[in-house]
């Protein structure tokens, strides 16, 4: 892998950006999701609509925002609205096509934990930031993309705390709970892509990134990983994609 002219994080970001079709409305969190979404706007999806939970609809930043409430988001947005409005009028009714989530832990049914690691909520091993917008993003966006680096610490059989529901305990749970969006249709990691099995909703490896071996993916998954029969290989980042990503990063660093 070291011979490749891109890093695993770059591959992950490019893969995430490709998952965004042009013209869709995307609820963006800061960090990798924001990088991927802004990369998509600069490559194949110029009409991607970015919604940030700080209340900016249609933000068009020319560098990566440094926080969810970066001034450049307000300066370039079609509309700046209050935080209650972004959740109540725009996210909750299902007006957002794609939501991005990160995860400290992700389990095989796509449930996400960003609250705490350990078995005692009152005395956690690691206290994490908490829910933020994630529970309702996971519930209300038409579909969800989870972006997370793959490791046995992150990819667990069952999350210690369900901050955001993926497929619960399996097929039919979302419907039973009354969750309206389709849930995490795509999990993009630094190793490959996982998608829910149509029958069981268990996350199944459907693609590996160039240079990644199946053994490595299995070794970095905390449950016995199922692999799709027609395992694809991710197309490598094109020179255009890589150049755009690096330029974006560079512009951002210059701004700081």
């Amino acid at each position: 892998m070291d011979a490749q002219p891109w890093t695993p994080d770059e591959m992950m970001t490019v893969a995430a950006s490709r998952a965004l079709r042009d013209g869709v409305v995307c609820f963006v969190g800061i960090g990798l999701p924001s990088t991927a979404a802004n990369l998509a706007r600069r490559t194949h999806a110029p009409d991607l609509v970015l919604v940030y939970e700080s209340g900016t609809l249609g933000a068009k930043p020319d560098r990566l925002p440094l926080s969810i409430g970066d001034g450049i988001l307000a300066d370039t947005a079609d509309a700046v609205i209050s935080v209650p409005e972004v959740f109540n009028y725009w996210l909750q009714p299902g007006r957002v096509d794609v939501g991005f989530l990160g995860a400290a832990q992700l389990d095989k049914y796509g449930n996400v934990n960003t609250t705490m690691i350990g078995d005692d909520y009152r005395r956690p091993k690691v206290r994490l930031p908490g829910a933020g917008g994630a529970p309702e993003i996971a519930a209300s966006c038409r579909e969800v993309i989870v972006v997370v680096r793959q490791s046995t610490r992150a990819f667990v059989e069952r999350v210690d705390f369900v901050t955001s529901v993926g497929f619960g305990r399996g097929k039919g749970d979302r419907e039973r709970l009354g969750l309206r969006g389709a849930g995490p249709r795509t999990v993009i990691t630094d190793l490959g892509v996982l998608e829910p099995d149509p029958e069981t909703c268990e996350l199944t490896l459907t693609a590996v990134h160039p240079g990644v071996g199946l053994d490595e993916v299995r070794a970095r998954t905390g449950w016995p990983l199922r692999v799709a029969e027609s395992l694809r290989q991710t197309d490598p980042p094109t020179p255009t994609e890589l150049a755009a990503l690096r330029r974006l990063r560079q512009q951002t660093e210059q701004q700081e």
Partner: protein
Amino acid sequence: MARITSLPEAVSEVVQDGDTVAFEGFTHLIPFAAGHEVIRQGRRGLTLVRMTPDLIYDQLIGAGCASRLVFSWGGNPGVGSLHRFRDAVSHDWPAPLELEEHSHAGMANRYVAGASGLPFAVLRGYVGTDLPGQTSNIAPITCPFTGEVLTAVPALKLDSAVIHAQRADRHGNVQLWGITGVQKEAVLCATRSLVTVEEIVDELDPRPGAMVLPSWAIGYVAEAPGGAHPSYAQGYSVRDNDYYRAWDAIGRDREEFNRWLDSTIFNRSPGDPGPNPERGGADQQNGADRPSGADQQNGARA
């Protein structure tokens, strides 16, 4: 009508021991100067409320002002964790910190209900998560027309609310623009309120995207130029990203943190007898509170 006064006086009137208090701001316009003044005045037993507790809450918690936190996302945005917050949750240092935890949608609606004079709000939220198991403040509610079951959360009832804004006029009408988060709701939820502002002007000329909070809905207004530092005030200053990064090392270590408290908040040398709440905050609001390594170029008026 809002009373216009100094920051130390306003803080002493508005934020009292044992208060349920929100210092709101969604990355933008975070009332740091007022938070530091609260530390300086030695408030204790606060229930801190906020959607996005960040450095100022880490500082208030580390300084021992808080006994409870009601929140939806606690971190150092773009950098990582809040170590004073973690230390309080995991090791009760300097004091135990009880948590009540929500989602952003839940917290935003709790503010809306509070501002609306209602006891609760309804949303599609929390369903299937482990959050309802941690607090009794999330409950199911049935639509009387469709029978659908949704989620209710109680209104936030604040004793006090503190926000920062760009400007006020001499009547105490406040104008803020850019990302305005839940600031209006926070003020309207509170019995007592304080708005710190970059400047007090003769007239609030209308601006695109600006909201105005009328003087009669506000308790106190205090001029605190740079009072949002290290966060930013759109049109006045940019975010001091170095401060946020430098905070990680300070917050990580109890002794580092105490040194920071002594030198930048209490403004005293080692061996000084103790906190001096009467020492005013006005002379400390212009970047004097920045951690070492912060870029002195930031915070300048744009």
